[in-house]
């Protein structure tokens, strides 16, 4: 059964203008739904939005209140950056350098097997030099000169803590609220809950990069941006570092775009005929998705073409910006995606796992990430986009204030995984700039002021997006799941 519905004159006009003769003689019979979804790609994600990009019609009643942030850029630092060498200045460490860290701190704590059975745990002082920066006087080490310059834009949370001592579970915990794979990631929750805003791009994009030396990388599992038990259309679309940024994006050789258009028109027409016969509404979704695929074939290359960026902008992100798949490249991509109203942009950078190469690898790692991260903040700010974009920078845990390895073997110094306290920064929409929040003890070992659990952090991100994390649940296998599991409190003190 065909849905015979007259088109609104304006729709008809738009149809004519945008896609001349698209359905040829079938135009009269186009289901209103199909046409609606072609004209309004927001329908594609299954979650239409109103013109303000706020409320959705998906029956979830979201957002719960006016959001501060429209979108999130999460610069995830895989491997765990050393908080004591970068942001959490502890003069005590140099005083205690070479001395065994007090047993009162380490007894009963879990570390990875790399130091779990090591009995000597000498403190080592920071390998960098710290200074205070900006009006806020935030402590930043000289490994991060560009970040130091924008310290007044940032809100450092210095009392973060987590539960897992290994990478994959800890990253999964940060991104999905559970150590075991299988739950939806933060970006999936948000795109599911808040609906679609991007016109011709996916609403949740993930990108990955690693240190140039590839010294010690962790694998990027696709469940880091997976949709878990939410429908798969809410999973992050991974933009690749090489080749087509989206798999199978390019038409086969010998099928130019004009020809693709004509073939698609035929497919859509034949599908319409089938719909007339079968009445299955999924056919209309299919038509819309083929149209979206076609749009992405145009929008993605345009997105990745940096030739319209002025030189001073490119310079700001650093020389790596031209190397596809580098962190700098991904940061600029993040800004371009944000401009195109992509809701959740997840850039993951690996290589922070300095078990045996702290003295030379940490600085390389900082060189790769410092300028691009700072450039992204400045770039968003000058475009007025920092006001409604939330930027997050941080890893899955911190690193031990004590040494992994032999203190005489300076070249192989390292620090082990440290979930008990670490630092993360946020900036932009709804977050107080120039704030250092929370504190660790004098060894940078445990939090002493306002500890912030991963679920608290997640609750806060949700809050900034206009969502009460306790109310936003999805029923699966008989249980109502939420990103923050059964915990989490919004860290109100950091909200502007």
């Amino acid at each position, binding site marked *: 059964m065909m849905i015979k519905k007259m088109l609104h004159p304006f729709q008809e006009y738009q149809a004519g203008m945008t896609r001349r003769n698209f359905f040829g003689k079938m135009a009269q019979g186009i289901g209103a739904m199909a046409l609606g979804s072609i004209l309004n790609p927001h329908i594609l994600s299954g979650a239409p939005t109103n013109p303000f990009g706020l409320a959705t019609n998906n029956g979830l009643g979201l957002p719960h209140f006016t959001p501060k942030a429209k979108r999130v850029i999460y610069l995830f630092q895989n491997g765990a950056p050393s908080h004591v060498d970068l942001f959490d200045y502890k003069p005590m460490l140099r005083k205690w350098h070479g001395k065994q860290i007090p047993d009162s701190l380490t007894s009963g704590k879990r570390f990875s097997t790399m130091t779990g059975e090591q009995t000597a745990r000498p403190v080592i002082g920071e390998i960098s030099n710290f200074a205070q920066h900006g009006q806020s006087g935030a402590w930043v080490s000289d490994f991060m000169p560009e970040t130091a310059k924008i310290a007044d834009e940032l809100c450092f949370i210095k009392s973060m803590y987590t539960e897992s001592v290994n990478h994959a579970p800890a990253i999964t915990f940060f991104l999905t609220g559970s150590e075991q794979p299988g739950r939806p990631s933060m970006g999936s929750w948000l795109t599911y809950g808040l609906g679609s805003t991007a016109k011709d791009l996916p609403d949740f994009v993930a990108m990955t990069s690693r240190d140039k030396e590839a010294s010690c990388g962790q694998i990027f599992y696709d469940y880091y941006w997976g949709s878990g038990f939410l429908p798969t259309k809410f999973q992050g679309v991974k933009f690749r570092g090489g080749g087509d940024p989206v798999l199978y994006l390019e038409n086969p050789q010998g099928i130019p775009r004009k020809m693709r258009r004509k073939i698609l028109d035929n497919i859509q027409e034949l599908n319409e*005929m089938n719909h007339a016969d079968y009445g299955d509404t999924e056919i209309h979704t299919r038509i819309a998705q083929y149209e979206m695929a076609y749009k992405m074939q145009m929008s993605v290359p345009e997105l990745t073409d940096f030739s319209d960026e002025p030189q001073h902008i490119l310079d700001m992100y650093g020389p790596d910006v031209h190397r596809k798949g580098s962190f700098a490249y991904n940061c600029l991509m993040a800004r371009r995606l944000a401009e195109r109203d992509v809701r959740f942009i997840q850039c993951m950078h690996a290589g922070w796992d300095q078990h045996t190469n702290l003295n030379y690898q940490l600085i390389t790692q900082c060189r790769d990430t410092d300028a691009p991260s700072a450039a992204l903040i400045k770039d968003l700010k000058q475009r007025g986009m920092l006001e409604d974009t939330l930027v997050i920078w941080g890893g899955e845990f911190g690193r031990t204030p004590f040494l992994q390895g032999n203190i005489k073997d300076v070249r192989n110094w390292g620090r082990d995984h440290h979930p008990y306290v670490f630092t993360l920064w946020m900036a932009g929409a709804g977050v107080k700039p120039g704030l250092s929040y929370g504190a660790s003890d004098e060894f940078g070992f445990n939090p002493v002021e306002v500890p912030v659990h991963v679920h608290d952090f997640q609750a806060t991100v949700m809050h900034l997006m206009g969502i009460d994390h306790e109310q936003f649940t999805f029923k699966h296998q008989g249980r109502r799941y939420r990103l923050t599991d059964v915990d989490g409190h919004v860290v109100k003190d950091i909200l502007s």
Partner: protein
Amino acid sequence: MVKEIKITLFLLCGFLWLSGCGISMPDEIETAYEALPEKIDFNFHVRPILSDRCFNCHGPDENTRKANLRLDVEEAIFSKITESGSFPVVKGKPEKSQLISRILSEDSDLIMPTPESNLSLSPEEKAILIKWVEQGAEWKLHWAYTVPKKVELPTVKNTDWPKNKIDYFVLDKLESNGLRPSEEASKETLIRRLSFDLNGLPPTPQEVEAFKNNASTNAYEKLVDRLLASPRYGERWAWEWLDVARYADTNGFQGDFTRDMWPWRDWVIKAFNENMPYDEFTIKQLAGDLLPGATPENILATAFNRNHPYNTEGGTIPEETRVVNVFDRVETTGTAWLGLTMNCARCHDHKYDAITQKEYYQLFDYFNQTSEEGGGWGGKIKPLLNLSDAEKRQEMEGLLEYIDGLVEQVEVFEFEKFPRDFGLPASESSVAKELKGLDPRILLKPTDNRATGEFRVLSEYFKKKDMAYANLLTDVFAKKKSYDELASSSIMVMVMDELEEPRTTYILDRGGYNNPMLNEAICMDVPAVLPPLPKDEKNNRLALAKWLVSKEQPLTSRVTINRYWQHFFGKGIVKTIEDFGVQGALPSHPELLDWLAVDFQENNWDLKRLFKKIVMSATYRQSSKVSEELLEKDSENTYLARATRMRLPSWMLRDQALYVSGLLVDSIGGRPVKPYQPEGIWSEATFGKTIYQQDKGDALYRRSLYTFWRRIVGPTFLFDNASRQLSTVKSANTNTPLHALTTLNDITYVEASRVMAENVLLEKNNDVKRLQYAFEKATTRRPDAEELSLLKNRLADLRNYYSASKEDALALNSIGEYRTNDSLNLVDHAAYTAICSLILNLDETINRQ
């Protein structure tokens, strides 16, 4: 205002009492009450409400239970509450039941559910609870825990329609909901539907023709029998079981080493093709190694429980990995056979289902007895089944024994060389700490856990320092290396075994491997809510497997029927395929599910018989066409007044493209193959450590089932498939632009279009016939005049284009590695390649209608 209502209600009370209502209700509840069915059923109406809104605080989990009140067991809900002296529920007396007064309360301190819970009850739900109490508050065991029974077939009005027993149950529901079944689908539609459902491939035009022309009354049944007997049947259903079994060809995690599990995959195909009864299929996979006189094939079947991911990432703690693997086995068993989500009970008593944390660890104990230790390296982690010939096996066993002896000597050596406190690793000796330039992590490892290469590093290091020690190390290295070489050229499947000295199982506090609660040793047993194990048999993994498929155990047959049902009708009779617990969905056709479950057991757990029954039904044979009226009445097709139109799984889409083009290499089993994959996928995922070496020739065109599955990054041509990280029973079916890009642009599909075009050109001699043939190959039907004219116009346009642009024609025709037929006209061939790609992308082609 409240007072007024109370007074009015008081005045009305006499009237209400007469009208059958013993309690005053606000208007909206009263309205809802009027609309309720005559008889409230505990399982279908009441328990879902109690479970969803109350059990979180008043359910099985002792640790979070509030006010010491539980509403999930019969004794408790009718017993006096000690503190207040009142009763949660008094049969027949809502006004005396605390449960009712609390849900009607307007006092925020008293109302249930509490405002903080973020839960609430609708007027209808409140009315249900009231009416249930009024009607005597009958309590029943959760439906899925009761033994299924065959009920008598319902009587139906339209006695002409049913073809077998399934139809009586379906029609009964349709008639009581004022719905009519749809007409039977066309023969073309039916043969395509059947071919995909039973064999995972479409029919050939010749097969369609033969079926259409066969007017005999048993033509349909003959077709069904042929498809059930085809070896493709085993391949089609093996895929589904591989998703359940989280099968992959690598470990997952960092390193992601390749393993040899594919002989087990071939065992599965064979089991399906030989129609192994499902109870035997279950017992062999869960406990084949424990069968009396277990054959290598029985042991091979147990690879099922070693298919889980295995973490050998640097820094992981072996015991943690081992425990996580046991968790996986418990939970996979829960999902695949019991339809119960067990994972909550790892850390605490289940919030909803009557599974305590202790019971979880009782199941854990069954799977806790293998010699797997959690450590190890590579993709061949013991216990292993070596499939090499006897001579090679002997050689390898001899080597292992010899190596063990040598390693013992190393142990003795290091004990003297690196003095340290008892129990500490060699690296903690002060002597070891003085060693410069040696990775301390090697000496940290126990001697029998060091990798082959580490022995070489050690021997090199000590060459100038301690000759005797170095020589011994060199010897270990050499022997280990020979063993490794023999192993790498052997097929060694990871399987299950049973320790002679059993491990003691403890409850792990909050699921932490390092937090055993040592006060109580846990012994293997099944959950108390289900029937007990037989008393006279030895209790071990084999007993558990037999119990799972015993007559008394109510879940396995229901869960299995339901899982398979979804592949024929788009969803299960119980929509939550993975959850038959109290929070799961209720069956849409409970009597049908039970009838099928009992019938399945009574008939030797015969899957082919079950599938035949399903596809022979009139229910299955309906058309999937849907009117607007029906769509409005039953958009989800719960009542089955039509067949369900379904997008083919992505693996079937690829198989279809290969098959209709003529590319498919139709052979069964063997090593996994590596077909086309865009460049850089593996290397990006593994930091350049692993490069995808695409196969050549026939290997490119095997069924998708045989594609090598790297667990951290599965085959890229798939979408919506289970990720094979954990057991998955529910099929996903989404619709995204990325799917469109795959079937439009993936080299597999373009090459298939090219070869399909070649066959079409050679097979038929004019455009109309060719277009018809191509269309028919993909959809099983002839295009109508309008469709044909559209294709003809496009063909003409394509010919024009490719005549003018020969380079594009050449470019298109050289996609893929299959040889190009130079005898064909280049322009024709390119135009038809584009047409075939168009046809392979039609919604009708990618769906089974």
